[in-house]
């Protein structure tokens, strides 16, 4: 149960007890964190669970698939640290991870 902090675009932060083995997106939704839409429900198919990781967590979060990369490439606000949170599986080593959310999901 690592503690993960999600930061809204306006700076409001939400620290949650995340569940290892499930997606970061589901953890955000289940804890009522605003700013993640997840229209497709976690199929890497809509791009509305976009987040920015702090660079130090990129390795731990693993490589994005080519599908995720394609979905992210549609985002005008994509950064090097962009990921879709439905494609990140939480693990115990993510204790203290900080995740920023974009200004909008589309």
């Amino acid at each position: 149960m690592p503690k993960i902090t999600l930061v809204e675009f306006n700076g409001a932060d939400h620290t949650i007890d995340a569940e290892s083995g499930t997606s970061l997106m589901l953890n955000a939704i289940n804890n009522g964190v605003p700013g993640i839409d997840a229209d497709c429900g976690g199929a890497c198919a809509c791009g509305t669970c976009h987040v920015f990781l702090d660079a130090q967590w990129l390795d731990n979060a693993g490589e994005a698939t080519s599908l995720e990369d394609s979905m992210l490439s549609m985002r005008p606000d994509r950064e090097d640290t962009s990921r879709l949170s439905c494609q990140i599986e939480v693990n115990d080593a993510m204790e203290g991870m900080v995740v920023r959310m974009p200004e909008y999901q589309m």
Partner: protein
Amino acid sequence: MNSISQLPDPAATPLADIDFSDPRMFLQDNWYAYFARLRNEAPVHYQADSPFGPFWSVTRFDDIVAVDSNYQDFSSEPVIVIGDPEEDMPLDMFIAMDPPKHDLQRRAVQSVVAPKNLAQMEALIRSRVADILDNLPLGKTFNWVDEVSINLTTQMLATLFDFPFEERSRLTYWSDMATAAPEISGGNADPQEREAALMDCLATFTRIWHDRKAAGSESFDLISLLQRDPNTSDMVDNPIEFLGNLVLLIVGGNDTTRNSATGGVLALNQNPAEYDKLRADYGLIPSMVSEIIRWQTPLAHMRRRATRDLEFRGQKIREGDKVVMWYMSGNRDERSIDNPDAFIIDRENPRHHISFGFGVHRCMGNRLAEMQLRILWEEIMQRFSFVEVVAEPKRVQSNFVRGYETLPVRVHSRQG
């Protein structure tokens, strides 16, 4: 009516004898039972013969998501409608391209509908909506499609293209002509009239392109965005691609929102308890907008082509086979959506619908569409206690655009 023109009995007819591309199912709005049978009995179904050639139907929500997000196996080329490309008028557009070319062309224009731009458009849209609604005739029957839905979406489209405002009805005409070819969607456009309309569209926008280029535009309209992006800056020199993308952006920004703006009125009239919920709580408008878009499903299908022999849900699909994802069926799939045939404006998870598609071709203008519909309903509720449907709608004959030609209504002022 002779028996040939009647649709077959949906319950008793063998699946092999039903034409699932028959546009009359949509014209008559009686497709539900046919596609429920497919979802239950043959969710990935091969139809060996149709006016559009043989094709597979994919009808369940999750299967559509799987096909839609797998562009490697299911290509969007050469076209995304059930009808094959026209030999005498081929059109290239990025919705009918695969990555990486698709990504380059889409990226050039998508910032026009980025939420940052939308925030700046909100006040403009609201004032236009107010103007449209304030000029509706009280106590008289009129066609909601013409007076409100087309009026609103055409004004928006003119703004997105920075198209001469007083000539904006031409955009609507070109949009209607583009999708209404018999061989594309079972529509009823005259081929010669359609070709003339599309050529007029191309000539008009070619002129606009060169004028704007000469003037050195720095604005954020779609034409200027295409000109500024190195991947699309010479698109005007490729008329097939220029016209194709114009048609894509015009249809995408027009038909869909227009028919949801009409469908919402119809849905609330058919479900008076939901209308009462709305009257009691305007805060339901955002979730109602998503529900309207699901319920209406303004585009009935998208078509793909298998890039290799593969097995999908136990069916052997061969390379080159046409695969049609029926979005309106996925949106009525009880496996993914509770009570899917009901119109419920405060659904738990209203954004979980298939109308925008999924994967890299997911609707680019989805947030703009939602915003226009939200503002429309906010302003309607400020003015009218009831937008009353007084006669049956006349629907569009098409297996692609699920739309309306007429919806006769009367509006009742809140002041009584």
